[in-house]
């Protein structure tokens, strides 16, 4: 997709003015959180499993070179081919070359965020290979020429009318006045449209949720079954994936699977969890004749050994964005990058540079909800803070903000003045907002209050209350 993270503020403003998007967000958001919570409550061991999931990924990353080489050796042992691609460009070229050698004209695709990240579809199309997205949501986005707005529910931002309108416009072989009674009718139409494409494709591209070093296996997790048809029916299967997906063993994978679907959709497990190892074997009645793995780095190896190494644990469940108050208001497109939400705000500056995406780590209230639901316990707010520091050090922060921060720092280094000033402000604002409990407008903070109300202070400042509590404790009182 077009990288527009630089204009995050403008993107967010127009997203908040977009009534259709706001309707979609208001509907979708609470559902994900509710389903996750229900799934977690059904599994008493969930918290312990999160710790294990974190430890498994940490172990894999601490020995990433060893496990990647073991993985590649085992893929080759089972008749597959591994293509190591340091950059997005290498990866695109490699996939095209595989397609050309296979004589592939059309390529079906299972849902893959790495192929979005490397902009594979546009590249294939420009080079005479037609990609066909088969995940229901990815399919409609391809028809609408839109990028995904969410990493597991790519059409998060659409309403039913959008689906109906797009299908009517695109499926011109069907009667224009047909009636869609419910979502099922829309889904059935997509199923019929795509059925033949699955059989016509010369090559199928999927992503991978995990790569297993022990066996040279790639694992995909889907609910629709499109990923399985994509990797089973065509003559060539290409797995486009990234280096941090490797884990040591099947057992490690199974433990991670227990936290993945529960964190993502609130399912105990996805409908299809499929382990693929190499190409068709003698006697096999089906399956691809060629099995390729395009192993993409694209900046990830540069995170090893830095403060951002912990981000490599991410298993792309989307729990962080599903629980993020910022994502919930602006949606995924405002982030202007392949990966939205908190995990995207940490990852994107690494992939495209802090100059390009420095705005994103600021798109957070630091409420910490994201890390409290992360199945591999990535300290997302801490990592965003690291990016803010780097942005500030490199003088990428807007000047008004730099002056503001310098002013605050001057003030904060003078405790007496700071306490007096904040106390006066608290009393003043408390008086201003004493009727409704919140302030719809504040001097100099129009940009902030345009999108939300400022809660009016109730009572005294933290310092004053803390001091009062201390005095009471010293006097032997109980609070």
């Amino acid at each position, binding site marked *: 997709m077009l990288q527009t993270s630089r204009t995050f503020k403008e993107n967010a403003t127009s997203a908040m003015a977009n009534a259709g998007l706001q309707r979609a967000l208001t509907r979708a958001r609470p559902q994900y959180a509710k389903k996750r919570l229900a799934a977690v409550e059904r599994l008493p061991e969930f918290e312990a499993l999160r710790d294990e999931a974190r430890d498994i990924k940490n172990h894999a990353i601490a020995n990433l070179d060893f496990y990647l080489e073991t993985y590649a050796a085992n893929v080759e042992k089972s008749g597959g081919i591994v293509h190591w691609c340091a950059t997005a460009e290498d990866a695109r070229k490699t996939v095209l070359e595989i397609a050309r050698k296979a004589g592939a004209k059309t390529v079906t695709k299972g849902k893959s965020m790495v192929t979005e990240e490397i902009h594979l579809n546009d590249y294939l199309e420009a080079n005479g290979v037609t990609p066909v997205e088969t995940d229901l949501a990815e399919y409609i986005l391809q028809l609408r020429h839109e990028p995904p707005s969410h990493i597991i529910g790519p059409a998060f931002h659409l309403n039913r009318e959008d689906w109906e309108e797009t299908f009517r416009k695109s499926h011109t072989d069907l009667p224009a006045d047909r009636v869609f009674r419910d979502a099922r009718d829309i889904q059935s139409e997509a199923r019929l449209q795509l059925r033949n494409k699955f059989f016509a494709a010369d090559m199928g591209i999927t992503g991978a949720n995990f790569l297993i070093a022990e066996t040279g296996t790639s694992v995909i997790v889907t609910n*629709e079954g499109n990923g399985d048809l994509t990797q089973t029916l065509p003559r060539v299967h290409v797995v486009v994936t990234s280096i941090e997906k490797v884990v040591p063993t099947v*057992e490690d994978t199974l433990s991670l699977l227990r936290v993945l679907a529960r964190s993502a959709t609130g399912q105990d497990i996805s409908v299809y969890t499929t382990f693929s190892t190499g190409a068709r074997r003698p006697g096999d009645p089906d399956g691809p004749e060629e099995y390729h793995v395009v192993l993409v780095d694209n900046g990830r190896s540069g995170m090893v*050994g830095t403060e951002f190494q912990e981000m490599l644990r991410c298993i792309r469940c989307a729990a962080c964005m599903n629980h993020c108050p910022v994502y919930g208001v602006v949606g995924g497109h405002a982030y202007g990058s392949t990966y939205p939400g908190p995990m995207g705000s940490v990852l994107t500056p690494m992939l495209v540079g802090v100059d390009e995406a420095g705005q994103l780590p600021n798109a957070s209230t630091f409420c910490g909800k994201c890390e409290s639901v992360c199945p591999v316990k990535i300290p997302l707010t801490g990592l965003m803070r690291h990016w803010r520091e780097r942005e500030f050090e490199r003088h990428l922060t807007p000047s008004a903000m730099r002056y503001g921060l310098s002013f605050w720092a001057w003030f904060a280094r003078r405790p007496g003045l700071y306490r007096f000033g904040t106390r006066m402000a608290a009393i003043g604002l408390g008086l201003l907002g004493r009727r409704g409990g919140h302030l719809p407008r504040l001097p100099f903070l129009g940009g902030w209050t345009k999108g939300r109300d400022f809660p009016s202070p109730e009572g005294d400042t933290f310092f004053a209350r803390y001091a009062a509590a201390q005095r009471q404790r010293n006097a032997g009182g109980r609070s």
Partner: protein
Amino acid sequence: MSQDPGRSAIIGNIRRGLKRGPLPADQQAMLAGRLATHPRHLVPARGQGDSARLVASFMDNVLREFGTVQRLPDFAAVPGAISAYLAAQNIAAEITVSPHPELQAIPFADTPLLKVRFGKAEPTDPVTVTQAFAGIAETGTLMMPSGPERPTTNNLLSDTAIAVIRAARIVGAYEDAFDLLRTERAGMPRNVMMITGPSRSADIEQTLELGAHGPRSLHVLIVDES
């Protein structure tokens, strides 16, 4: 070890980040030992218990995941159960059966109204009957490793999927099913599907709809005969 420039760049970069060269031999041996013994981690209590409990929780979980399930005394009861199920769903009694010896031994000829073909599913086949390698109580999951007797497409192409499984093959946890696979199959099969309920999507307004690209319904027949 390799001349591949992409590979050297990636591995080199990782090692620079980890501030070391290739792992020393003793540490490599330790990791190789971990791979060889592939230790289990925490297995939730819901995937443990005696056989009766596991079969019961397997059945509960199949239903929870929008599948249906029926328990049969022996394989001879399978054709009748399939006929009755299809009739109740108003589906033509025409089935494509995976060429698994256990399914081939079923006396389908005794139920002449059922049209039976053994082999790989064609795109238009309405009903497939497969044999499950294992059932997993933890989440009501079927394990389907590929091979001549179990074409992968038979899990995917039909509108109605019927899976036959012996009660004795229902285990507690995913790990137990993979242990069976490790014991009974030499190495990892080309494809291992773990299937939990019929295919579905919630992409349209988060409304769950069954029958996306795979089967719209999944019916599991548990056979007590060992």
